[in-house]
């Protein structure tokens, strides 16, 4: 017994000493963290982020690494699951920053994770780019936190203007989820913008429901009765099909307009026919895209079998932004704190970055100035570019 134990220990020690990893000097590797909801309420969002990140890594590996200041560095992705929970996102960020020594973080996507996670990133002076979070608090007073999308205070007026110009309507109805941060915020912004244009009381129905409700008939009956000409509903892909179908069943004739949360591929799949011909504002339109955007969409579709939604596109842009910022620093010192600050400074200086979701320049708050796209769901159920609206 004792002999065997001794033998095992000795073999183990020898194996360790001669294994390739032992005694090897620690290399400087550029690590990028991905903080995504791979499990939890919105796994599709996490999947899109992960796939986009993997495609990016593939590109870098094809080039043999990332070139910074004439030297090639290996790149590693650290993908962490935030379970769609705030404290898990905080844990994931803390782990990536203090344990994995990431140079920059992309994610989390939803505001309820991005707001607390941004606090951590800012505390440890590490760049964090949230591709999808639209809550102003994510980047507010946080020099190290950036985002890849426009904010609600911009999107609301864009939709209001579009409806006014396109249809000439003056009476609107709003249906939104009062318990969810994003729809509620956007509904408020839209109402404000609409009433500024058409006078007080021009939002004739302002109805709400609570997350996970599936029956909207009482709210929709009110809306139909109110005499509204258009319905605005900034909801997610799991609610939009129900709302649209129930509205049609209750005799709603006017158009239904949505926001960028409609952008998931699932919306049309679940909704089908009733959603055709509706409009929503978004970050990009997949059908009829050109240039780099088209190349990205085609490649993603070929690899993963479905058309990427806006989260994937925004994540891709965020990664390219991070890459650009790292390359612009001109040199990796290997001292992680210095490098992180250098990346932050060069990211803030980027002007007119040509992303696949539009050109971006950051404001002092770390929010990009970029255009919104109005997308029409065409008769084939594709998201077609209709119009773009710039600040």
């Amino acid at each position, binding site marked *: 017994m004792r002999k065997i134990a001794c033998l095992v220990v000795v073999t183990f020690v020898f194996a360790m000493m001669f294994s390739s*990893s032992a005694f090897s000097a620690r290399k400087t590797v550029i690590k990028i963290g991905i903080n995504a909801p791979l499990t939890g309420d919105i796994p599709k969002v996490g999947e899109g982020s992960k796939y986009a990140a993997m495609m990016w890594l593939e590109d870098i590996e094809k080039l043999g690494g990332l070139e910074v200041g004439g030297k090639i560095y290996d790149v590693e992705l650290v993908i962490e*699951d935030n379970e769609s929970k705030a404290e898990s996102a905080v*844990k994931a960020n803390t782990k990536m920053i203090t*344990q994995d020594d990431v140079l920059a973080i992309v994610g989390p996507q939803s505001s*309820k994770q991005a*707001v607390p996670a941004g606090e951590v990133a800012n505390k440890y002076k590490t760049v964090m780019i949230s591709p999808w979070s639209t809550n102003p608090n994510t980047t507010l007073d946080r020099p190290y936190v950036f985002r890849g999308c426009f904010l609600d205070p911009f999107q609301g007026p864009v939709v209001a203007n579009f409806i006014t110009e396109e249809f000439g309507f003056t009476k609107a109805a709003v249906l939104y989820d009062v*318990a969810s941060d994003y729809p509620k915020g956007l509904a408020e912004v839209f109402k404000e913008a609409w009433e500024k244009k058409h006078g007080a009381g021009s939002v004739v129905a302002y109805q709400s429901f609570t997350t996970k409700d599936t029956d909207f008939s009482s709210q929709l009956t009110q809306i139909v009765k109110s005499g509204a000409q258009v319905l605005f509903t900034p909801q997610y892909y799991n609610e939009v099909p129900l709302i649209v179908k129930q509205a049609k069943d209750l005799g709603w004739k006017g158009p239904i307009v949505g926001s960028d949360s409609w952008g998931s591929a699932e919306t049309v799949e679940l909704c089908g026919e009733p959603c055709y011909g509706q409009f929503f504002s978004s970050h990009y339109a997949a059908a009829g895209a050109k240039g780099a955007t088209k190349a990205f969409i085609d490649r993603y579709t070929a690899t993963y079998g479905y058309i990427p939604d806006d989260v994937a596109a925004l994540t891709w842009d965020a990664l390219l932004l991070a890459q650009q910022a790292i390359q612009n620093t001109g040199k990796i010192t290997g001292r992680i704190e210095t490098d992180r600050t250098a990346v932050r400074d060069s990211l803030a200086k980027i002007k007119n970055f040509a992303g696949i979701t539009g050109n971006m320049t950051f404001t002092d708050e770390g929010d990009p100035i970029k255009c919104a796209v109005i997308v029409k769901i065409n008769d084939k159920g594709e998201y077609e570019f209709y119009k773009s609206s710039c600040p």
Partner: protein
Amino acid sequence: METARKFKNMFSTVPILGWLLGILAAVLIEYYWGYDYISYYLGLPKIPVLFGALIMLKNPMMIPGAIGYDLVVYVIPVLLIAKTTAFFTNPLAAMLEKTPLWLSAIVHLIFFYGVLHLWAGINDYRVLIVKLTLISIILTISINVINGYQGEFSCSHPGFMALGAYVSSIITLYFFVNDKIFGIAVLPPALGPWLFPFALLAGGVAAALGSLLVAIPSFRTRGDYLAIISLAFMFIVKSAVENLNGIGGARGMGGQPDYAPLPIIFIWTMLCIWIVHNFVSSIMGKALNAVRDDEAASESMTVKTRKTKMTAFTFGAFWAGIAGGLFAHVLAYINPGMFSINRLAEILAMVYFGGLNSIVGSIVGAVSINVLGEALRPLELFKWIIIPLILILVMIFRPYGLISFKEINAKQLLRSKFKREQGA
């Protein structure tokens, strides 16, 4: 088996003090040589944060390195130091045994905290895990008072937690911080950390008052009915906060000052363990068990069942409120969605996994669910298959949880192991 028994015998003479000393040595080794020498020669990129669990699951090539690290840094030094220092830790423990129990317990706790602080201090990720685990311990113990000692099935704990979190956050934000919701701080921010305990207590009291809302209409019901009423309460709290725009509504409330560093949370956790232990071993605690086992019989034996149940319920809610307040100040952000059905599932999992009617069980449950959740992180989706599977197995083989119906015996735990060696 024979070797295992021999092994166990060999270390049966080591008192708690000895083990602590061993762990201290291990942590010091990690602190001074962990990064530069040991993990370097083992080919590890950094000090493995959770005994190498994360790194092993992420990259199987690292398994020998991580195991080697655990052996060199933890297992061997702990065993070696614990055994070799037994000659003086035993007399030391015997000396402490002669002092009052509280003194000896405090000395041990201070020592334990020092080791924990040093271990966690190596990496901020560890600090965060330890903080959240300690808060989970408070939560689990507090729900054990209701679901274990009182034998009810209450589902409103996330609601109590939310009350505590919001009330204490409102107080600290209003008085000590310049923020967007409440404007300029009313009191000088320097006072904040000193008055923070009062904010926490206020959160706890708010939760206790909230629990009265559940207790008064439902004290006549038991079992399923109480479960439904308390579940409803949880949703009422969540919806109420969502519709209160003054405190952030669904957007949540952020910017809480960092008043909850590790030592503060540790002190609150120890206070919770001590007070709950005293509560459940008091006459009231015994009456609680009597009510659980047979309400009619205990009523006829002069137990005031109504008062007993109400007290225990508010008491449990109070500690949930404290936990909520600490939680809010660790994350520096709360929103109503955090205190929903997911949180309830987590709390219930911890208490039923660890063991009903036992403080040790609650600690074991909270620590193991938290550490498992963190250690299995690299598995992503499979984590949610493995943890429930473990829960199911525990429920099949130990229906009341891992360590149920057992109390801490501090005196026995802390005593010197000298006498046993002499064959007494």
